[in-house]
């Protein structure tokens, strides 16, 4: 029997790095500790893992940055994209991060479908987590969280 523990920061960070380099042709950096990472108008993408470990991975970033992420993926200016395109792109990012984490964890795990929605200002930091960290890209924060248990 395989024992699966919650994905740790190193594993999730590696998955995010891989997605950024492969799908956005860019690199993310740790968010500077002295800089405010609060979100005024965020977009939150989550994906659920079920099986030997039950929980969710969540990526939350400002709406403007979500547009830049979508633009980098598609190779189009963010201003030319619809809200649907932006949500779809962020959903695919968390889907691939989740799939990469799932593959690295091993054990019996099933990946859910991504969920993307606008989030309240403090939602990215208020929910109890099994781990989380903040990355930065294009001068804006990306909150990455590991949320144990089912929603």
């Amino acid at each position, binding site marked *: 029997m395989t024992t699966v523990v919650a994905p740790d920061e190193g594993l999730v960070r590696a998955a995010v790095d891989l997605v950024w380099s*492969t799908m956005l042709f860019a690199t993310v950096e740790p968010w500077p500790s002295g800089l405010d990472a609060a979100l005024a108008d965020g977009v939150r993408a989550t994906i659920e893992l079920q099986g030997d470990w039950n929980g969710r991975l969540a990526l939350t970033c400002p709406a403007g940055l979500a547009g830049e992420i979508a633009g980098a993926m598609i190779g189009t200016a963010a201003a030319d994209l619809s809200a*649907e395109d932006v949500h*779809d792109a962020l959903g695919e990012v968390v*889907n691939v991060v989740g*799939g*990469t984490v799932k*593959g690295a964890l091993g054990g019996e795990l099933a*990946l*859910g*479908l991504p969920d993307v929605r606008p989030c309240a200002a403090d939602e990215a930091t208020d929910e109890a987590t099994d781990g989380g960290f903040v990355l930065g890209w294009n001068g804006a924060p990306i909150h990455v969280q590991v949320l144990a248990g089912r929603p």
Partner: protein
Amino acid sequence: MRALIVDDSRVMRRIVGKLLEEVGYDVVEAGDGAEAVAVLEGSAELPVLACVDWNMPVMDGLTFVGEVRRRPEWRSVTLMMVTTESEQEQIVRALAAGAHEYLIKPFTGEALLEKLDLLGLLPARTGSGA
């Protein structure tokens, strides 16, 4: 040559579609397996290639692969899974169900073209993509 892209992510369909168009494919899209079945049923000219995501609503990619393989009239369609499912067990399941190739997300454009080359389905290499 025609290619069918089956993925619930519109963005992924655009990304894969752009890469395929760059090497000469005419691309048709479907947002899930059931929609892809409808596309094939309505096709006067079958695609030579279908790039199929695994995790989709309505009908997932593995079920779609099984459905295509169940129909003798669709035997000419080459099936390539393009998915985040990276475990060896899942790859074996997909190949056993009838997929010809398997590409794990995230992937580079180069990796996609290499898979096409392996399948003998790279019509004209006009750029490396990314």
